[in-house]
């Protein structure tokens, strides 16, 4: 199992770096798909069966396809974006430094503050049945609220993208 973890971890990190390093947005999407797949396998090792499924279905299947659509619709034939120095090029070094500093702090925090407890019996943690029961009993309010948020998002997107002469 530890081997599987390391394999997935390395794939996830590599694909993550690939995602943010690619000049072409389409390449980034491909990197992200690989990343999500690796995460889905990690979810399986954490006995989150249902979530692993959702990771593939929603993220890879829906969200990233949305990204692809936007890229396909908008950037064909337009000028490449990241050519030449950006206006905030000087910010690159501090940004990387801040990110690494945050990572060090988090890692050190995990070492200092976190001492995990031993896991108990698994039962059927993360199974579809268990998940569904939790979702519709304990967390039913959050579930309904999420539905409402999605509705608002749909309405908002239609309002914004569907109008032509919005000026800013």
């Amino acid at each position, binding site marked *: 199992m530890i081997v599987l973890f390391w394999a997935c971890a390395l794939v996830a990190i590599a694909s993550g770096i690939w995602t943010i390093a690619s000049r072409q947005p389409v390449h980034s999407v491909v990197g992200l798909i690989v990343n999500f797949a690796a995460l889905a396998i990690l979810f399986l090792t954490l006995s989150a069966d249902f979530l692993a499924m959702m990771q593939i279905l929603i993220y890879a299947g829906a969200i990233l396809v949305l990204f692809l659509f936007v890229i396909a619709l908008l950037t064909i034939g337009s000028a490449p974006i990241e050519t030449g120095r950006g206006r905030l090029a000087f*910010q690159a070094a501090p940004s990387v430094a801040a990110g690494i500093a945050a990572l060090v702090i988090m890692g050190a925090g995990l070492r200092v503050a976190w001492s*995990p407890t031993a896991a108990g019996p698994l039962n059927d943690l993360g199974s579809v049945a268990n998940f569904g029961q939790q979702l519709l009993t304990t967390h039913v309010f959050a579930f309904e609220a999420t539905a409402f948020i999605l509705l608002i998002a749909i309405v908002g997107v239609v309002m914004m993208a569907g109008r032509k002469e919005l000026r800013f």
Partner: protein
Amino acid sequence: MPQVPLNLYLELSAVLFIIGVIGFLLRRNPITMLMAIELMWNAGNLAFVAFARNYIDMSGQVFAFFVITVAAAEAAIALAIVVMVFRRRENADVDDISIMRG
């Protein structure tokens, strides 16, 4: 089969998160920046699921599920904004847009 320690998952989560952060800070293409944000969401999710496994508590997984849902909504709205930006101007470098100044 040896159990993978919780800390390893959490550290992986931290690394993925920081990759997302650095990507967000370095890239100028709004679509790539959004993908960096998606990376951060997923890093968080990994931590949630790892905790859920550690404590045998479904709440962590359910929360991750909600995160996925909200991430979907966020992506949809953000991409709608990007669409509008692209409609308005050919070049959508975020550094060229400074109307957020009050």
